[in-house]
């Protein structure tokens, strides 16, 4: 059983939902990333989405774009991101790490080289935003051979045929995008999300995470009531952006605890 599956089944056994924070690797500075990862786990993260910085993050809103820009100022490329995961794994062998990013950095490294290096570093799953399943069959196979999950997005506009196609290619969990827009966009409509998630459940046993519009603890609580995992990205990056070196880890920890409490309540 993969680390992602293990976490979901143990949460399910305890009647709990997964909290998945997102950070961009190298934001605000590469020296902080591994400490941030450990802080996220210590303050309630069940798994972590680690963003690979990219110069042209088309699906991201301004908050995560700025995180990429900060990381790229320090030349944090995919190779360095994998080194960070490896360092994190020396102390934490349980918490799943899901890399989230765009196709080009992966293709620049080479698909085969990447899947092997990611496995060696201790990556558990990969979500490549601009790889729809029909364009990345070899990549899915490469991840599978190396024991990693292929996480895919589902959106409010994905029709029934699309959902069928994606749930058959995905493993680990499904990531439902809660609104039409980029990361960190306007408020999500919880009733619509609820109906969509219920629809997806009729087609798959995979856990379903919801993200893209979870702005606060109250929203996280509502999402947790209908999904298996709550993904918090832009809000987490805002906390990082608004911190200085001294209060960075404590601010992250505080936000995480608020979210955790709300989700568990």
């Amino acid at each position, binding site marked *: 059983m993969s680390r992602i599956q293990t976490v979901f089944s143990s949460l399910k056994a305890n009647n709990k939902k997964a909290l998945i924070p997102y950070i961009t690797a190298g934001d605000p500075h590469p020296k902080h990333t591994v400490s941030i990862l450990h802080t996220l786990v210590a303050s309630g993260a069940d798994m972590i989405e680690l963003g690979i910085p990219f110069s042209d993050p088309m699906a991201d809103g301004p908050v995560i774009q700025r995180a990429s820009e900060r990381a790229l100022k320090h030349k944090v490329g995919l190779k360095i991101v994998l080194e960070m995961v490896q360092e994190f794994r020396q102390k934490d062998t349980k918490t799943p790490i899901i890399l989230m990013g765009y196709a*080009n950095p992966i293709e620049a490294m080479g698909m085969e080289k990447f899947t092997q290096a990611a496995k060696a570093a201790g990556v558990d799953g990969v979500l490549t935003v601009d790889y729809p399943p029909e364009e990345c069959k070899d990549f899915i196979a490469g991840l599978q051979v190396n024991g990693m999950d292929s996480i895919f997005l589902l*959106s409010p506009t994905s029709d029934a045929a699309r959902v069928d196609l994606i749930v058959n290619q995905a493993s680990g969990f499904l990531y439902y995008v809660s609104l039409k827009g980029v990361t960190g966009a306007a408020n999500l409509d919880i009733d619509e999300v609820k109906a969509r998630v219920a629809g997806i459940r009729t087609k798959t046993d995979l856990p379903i995470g919801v993200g893209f519009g979870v702005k606060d603890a109250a929203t996280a609580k509502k999402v947790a009531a209908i999904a298996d995992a709550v993904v918090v990205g832009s809000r987490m990056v805002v906390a990082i952006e608004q911190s200085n070196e001294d209060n960075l880890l404590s601010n992250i920890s505080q936000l995480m605890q608020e979210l955790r409490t709300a989700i568990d309540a």
Partner: protein
Amino acid sequence: MQMYDMPDERGHFGQFGGTFVAETLVEALEKLRLMYEKYRHDPEFLAEFAYDLKHFVGRPSPIYFAERWTNKVGGAQIYLKREDLNHTGAHKINNTIGQALLAKRMGKPRVIAETGAGQHGVATATIAARLGLECVVYMGSEDVKRQAPNVFRMKLLGATVVPVESGSKTLKDALNEAMRDWVTNVSNTFYIIGTVAGPHPYPMMVRDFQSVIGTEAKQQMMEMIGRQPDAIIACVGGGSNAMGIFYPYIDVPNVRLIGVEAAGHGLETGMHAAPLTANSPVGVLHGNRTYLMQDADGNIIETHSISAGLDYPGVGPEHAWLKDIKRAEYVAITDDEAMAAFHNLCRTEGIIPALESSHALAHAEKMAKTMRKDEIILVNLSGRGDKDINTVAKLSNITL
């Protein structure tokens, strides 16, 4: 001979092209793909398109024998396809009309566009005004500063111009931002992409709408001189004017197709916008796989060209394919070479060419000298240079 038949059903030109977008855009692209399939051979749609090209744009654009320039250069005879004479001053309007007519059929009241130099933005604002559509144009904040007259033209035409502050603040970032807008407003918005890039069906659709250039040229050359040219030369940023003139000639033997990229300060300096000529690696950006200027980590690097319209780190996937199958050749021309050709055409022919097109002209000068006097070069003069007079004046240290 097997007829050229690209792309495949999913927009692949060999390994290039495709649909590399987030799931949030898949449905919109699928709808567009089906809509375009429905209308691309529809007589009524094509008739409306042809009517607008004739009566609104002023097509067919003439072919002109640049005799004085030919004599000055010495060598092959150089003919110009006069896209500069189109309404709004460039080839861009052909495509915006095609896409806007589709938007109308899809019932979308709002169109968006990205623009670099502003020509595509102006062409989109123009057709939006004519059809009564709301129009928002994304433009890098650097380009907003460099291209003030075009920004004002768009506003006169009723468009909203949104300066883009992210990334390098140029064309590629404007495209990112337009995509973000589209994802958010997908239900009421049609995204009019200005070049043969982006996810399928854009590269094919834009090529088809622009292929009126080559289709006309084929007929006009026969009428004028009774034969087809030995070489066709066009500048390539994303590559829409080049695909427009190349496409109808792909199956015509013995016509060399030559795309001219921007060498900027020189390929050896790294400050250029010539992914094909500089042998950049293959990558994925803006929804398609193509040759891309990037660093070792796969991040897109900043490009340089005197001409904002060529200042793009990628290139349309069909050009990548034509390069690989060796049906087209790609070369690069520096800022200085383009400027020299710009002045030559002004002085010998009374035509002020766009800086983009000046790259094609500069290569025509180079090539013509190596060819016989009975050989023929056809250059796609893709736009006029009125928009560039501030840039040229500044380079000559003249204050207007």
